[in-house]
């Protein structure tokens, strides 16, 4: 078992260090024909807000070469409807559910955390922060989630704020830190007049395999130094990528939107990580040896 919230009164033990990233897997069952859920460590839900939110207007995806930008505005049916519709599913799932909360105001986060604390199947919260939050605002959101509910709180840190927020939020009481939300990016998109003569642009979250080296950079700087488990997220596209994250000190990996192309990547990563787990008596030596080699290279 991997303990994702060692400092929390109930903890958040998971059997396998793999889960889908928020916003990529729905609320639990959408992929049940293609993914063996029992092989995963947990499910992370799509972002949930206390009140319903509508989708963003305009173009929502731009694809270019090996990467793509998504801008959905994080639509959400609202917490009550999510609990009503997904709650019965969560009860049946063979793995714990981590609900990803869209962090807006502390009072909303607190209320959502309190509601979710009594929902069967839900074993943790992941707080999604926007890039523009100050540390004090982020800390207040974290405090609201932790104090109003009794679930472990993971904080997902925006790509551009890792150095600034990750260590301080870990100190402020986050049970685990997810590194990282996708970077914001702008893509020129097809269209406009006369065969694309007039350029249009779209801004959104960037996904693609090129995020992976950025993730490794963040892990090499922070995993093992935060004092809480780190969840790696960004551009992981193979079991080897996932292993590299664990070697650099991540406790768990999340597969992001790349799983839309290969949903069963979740299972192949899970199998590979389970198989690669060293025998208990050699585990420490192997990992520290690997880490030592990696640190020397870095």
């Amino acid at each position: 078992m991997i303990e994702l919230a060692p400092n929390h009164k109930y903890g958040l033990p998971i059997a396998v260090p793999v889960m889908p990233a928020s916003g990529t897997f729905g609320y639990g069952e959408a992929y049940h024909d293609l993914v063996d859920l029992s092989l995963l460590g947990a499910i992370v839900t799509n972002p949930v807000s206390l009140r319903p939110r509508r989708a963003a207007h305009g173009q929502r995806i731009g694809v270019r070469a090996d990467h793509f930008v998504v801008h959905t505005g994080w639509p959400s049916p609202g917490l009550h409807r999510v609990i009503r519709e997904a709650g019965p599913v969560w009860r049946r799932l063979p793995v714990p559910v981590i609900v990803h909360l869209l962090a807006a105001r502390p009072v909303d986060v607190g209320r959502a955390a309190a509601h979710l604390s009594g929902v069967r199947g839900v074993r943790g919260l992941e707080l999604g922060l926007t890039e523009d939050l100050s540390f004090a605002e982020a800390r207040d959101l974290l405090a609201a989630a932790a104090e109003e509910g009794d679930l472990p709180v993971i904080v997902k840190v925006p790509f551009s704020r890792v150095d600034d927020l990750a260590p301080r939020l870990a100190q402020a009481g986050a049970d685990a830190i997810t590194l990282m939300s996708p970077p914001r990016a702008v893509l020129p998109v097809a269209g406009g007049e006369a065969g694309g003569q007039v350029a249009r642009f779209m801004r959104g979250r960037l996904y693609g395999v090129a995020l992976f080296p950025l993730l490794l950079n963040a892990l090499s700087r922070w995993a093992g130094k935060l004092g809480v488990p780190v969840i790696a997220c960004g551009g992981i596209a193979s079991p080897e990528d996932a292993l590299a994250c664990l070697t650099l000190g991540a406790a768990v990996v999340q597969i992001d939107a790349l799983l839309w192309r290969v949903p069963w990547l979740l299972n192949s990563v899970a199998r590979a990580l389970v198989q690669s787990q060293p025998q208990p008596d050699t585990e420490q030596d192997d990992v520290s040896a690997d880490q030592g080699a990696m640190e020397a290279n870095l």
Partner: protein
Amino acid sequence: MARRQTATLRTLRPVPPVWEIRLDLEYAPGAGSYVLADLGGPVREPLFPSVVDDTGFCTIVPRGHAVTRYLPGTPIDVIGPLGQGFRLSAAGYVPDRLLLIAEVDELPWLQPLYQAAPSVALVVEATTRGRLPPPARFPPTLELTLVTRDGSTGYLGPLESDGPTPVGIECALPRVRELVAWAECICIAGDMARYPALARLVQEVRFRPQTDFAQALVRVPMPCGVGVCDICRVTTRHGERRACVDGPVFDLMDFLE
């Protein structure tokens, strides 16, 4: 059920200005539904059928699309069939009189319905005559109505508009109304932005059409196909719906404003 399958690329041929590819596939999508194909990009692409038969389906891709460089025999990983396609027997019986309405670029997705009823009428709209397929490409059993935006052939479009008509050119709207009154079922493929106006037109002629009397295909990017990414959300009068699982074929009246 979201099923993973391996399709085999059987043939590719240019049909200017696009390419037609044929995929052999055990479970092929029906008219208006789709499969998500892994064609080498970072996200899957929805492929809608332009022809469906027992061993697979044909689809249309733009000139220069990556798949046009594949060799026949190439295996392609697909998920599907997915989504709700056209539902011709929604009323509990197969209609005798089917009306198809398409903008020319979306016409391929109605092609599998050309022989779906004893009487099928087709209205095709293009900007100008040169954009319309040659009449020989249509089966003779189809009752064909051509509409051009510039009046270069057929009726003058847009087909839902009753603006002023130059002398000697007939406006499409009366003809379309006549066909809407005649039809027992209507299937539409076009620009979604026009669906509210088309819904109003159908409502004017049929007053209170039954559910799915008129159905409209919504083609938007659908990278996940299972309702998790929220990229394909469309606004209907019942709120937001996901084209990938709630559609991509919707009751046209869902777009009434």
